[in-house]
């Protein structure tokens, strides 16, 4: 087992200001960035604020930016850095800072509430649901989401433009709209809610310019852009920009 001393820069401060603080800290074989942050807490900075929970990449709490890239600290192995390299850890830069590495992620909870929930079919009771595996596959992929909000953090629509936060739900919650729209038993349409249209009109799908950063940072490897956002855009096109599809659905509805 070999250990060495690494150079860390960790952002410390709160909403009234702050900056990168330098630390020299021991690193052992097999450790991840979160281990080092914990060692800083235990030995040099007991009040260093950081969120974490499962330490196994399953809860999505320890999101931060490491050398400028949004990542989970528990899933960032120290071995990917050179021993001479300075490792910079900052809080997520798209959200208001609370203290040190902790940010106020309430934006995401606000957006979660704005997406109308699953609408159970009126004619099916508990235990009567029948769904085929191939019909749930797509939504299941999106439900792998651990809500680390790295996609929300990296998305330039809100990261670089605070003013867009009211109009834009962000990749995670547009993906939630897609998940519900692809749910084989979601009965929203029967209640007059067209998720395809509201994706654009109310959740800001049009702001997405599919530059794929959400997919790049997703620790669960969900193909957010290709499997959720673009299909959702195409579904919005069905509703709003494609007279052929519109005509077809009209005719079919008349027939049935």
């Amino acid at each position: 087992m070999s250990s060495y001393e690494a150079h860390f820069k960790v952002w410390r401060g709160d909403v009234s200001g702050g900056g990168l603080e330098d630390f020299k800290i021991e690193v052992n074989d097999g450790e991840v960035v979160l281990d080092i942050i914990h060692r800083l807490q235990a030995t040099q900075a007991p009040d260093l604020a950081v969120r974490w929970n499962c330490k196994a990449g399953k809860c999505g709490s320890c999101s931060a930016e490491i050398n400028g890239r949004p990542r989970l600290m528990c899933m960032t192995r120290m071995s990917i850095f050179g021993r001479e390299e300075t490792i910079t850890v900052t809080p997520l830069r798209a959200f208001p800072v609370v203290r040190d590495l902790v940010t106020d992620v309430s934006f995401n909870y606000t957006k979660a509430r704005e997406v109308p929930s699953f609408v159970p079919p009126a004619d099916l009771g508990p235990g009567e649901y029948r769904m085929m595996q191939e019909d749930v596959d797509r939504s299941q992929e999106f439900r792998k989401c651990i809500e680390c909000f790295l996609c929300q953090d990296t998305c330039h629509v809100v990261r670089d433009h605070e003013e867009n936060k009211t109009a834009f739900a962000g990749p995670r919650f547009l993906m939630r709209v897609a998940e519900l729209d692809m749910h084989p038993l979601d009965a929203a349409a029967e209640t007059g809610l067209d998720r395809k249209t509201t994706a654009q009109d109310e959740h800001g799908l049009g702001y997405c310019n599919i530059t794929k950063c959400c997919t790049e940072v997703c620790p669960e490897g969900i193909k957010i852009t290709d499997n959720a956002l673009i299909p959702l855009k195409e579904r919005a096109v069905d509703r709003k920009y494609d007279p052929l599809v519109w005509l077809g659905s009209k005719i079919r509805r008349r027939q049935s």
Partner: protein
Amino acid sequence: MATGTEPHLNSGGVRTPTRAAIDAPHLRTDRWWLAPAATAAGLLAFVVYSTWRAFANTDYYAAPYVSPFYSPCLAENCEPMRSGPNWEIFGGWWGLSPALLILIFPLGFRLTCYYYRKAYYRGFWASPPACAVAEPHKKYTGETRFPLILQNIHRYFFYAALLVACILTYDTVLAFRDEHYEWGHMGLGTLVFLVNIVLIWAYTLSCHSCRHIVGGQLKHFSKHPVRYRMWQWVGKLNARHMLLAWVSLVSVALADFYVYLVASGAFDDPRLF
């Protein structure tokens, strides 16, 4: 605290006052600029080349090969191509290069393509230049208003691209003739055309709109087993959309360049049989 940076005053994005006080627009230490720079360089090279060739209006036909930039040829001022794609819909009044008439469609298809959009938004627009690198623009409305809202018509260009791909397939069939229009021959050009048309089809069919139309729009795959299979198949291609976008771009330029070399006499098409 610490080094005593004050909170940002009244500047936007990552420098919004409530956010962590860090002045740098990004803290990435890798070569994040490489990908957008390479993308921009690659696209720029193609634009320069294709502009030259599209406006040149010469050296696009060397029997039996017609450059994909000039097929189908929709004006009277086209070179006659025996049983080739001469459809003079535009009659005689069109005086410019006939390439400009037809190139609108593949150009539109690629311009509104979900991959190319990413590529040029990042490469040319720097919106964003790379992930977690601040973009230089003050305002951003994405594809919510004119002109970028027109990106939504991608699927019409896809339909057009299907037609164009059919015509280029026809051109490839014609390439199985020799320069005297005898059937059953092949030259190096035929191979170039074959490779190109395969890549064009692969790129066209791997399109996100295509994936949506063949099956993605369905709610219940289980009720449409054939379309489900097609969706899965297109999905596999779609996973390589970026790769296909680039190789088909290069292959179409190479096919044109090959025709140019042969037509201008700089190179003699080696016949295989």
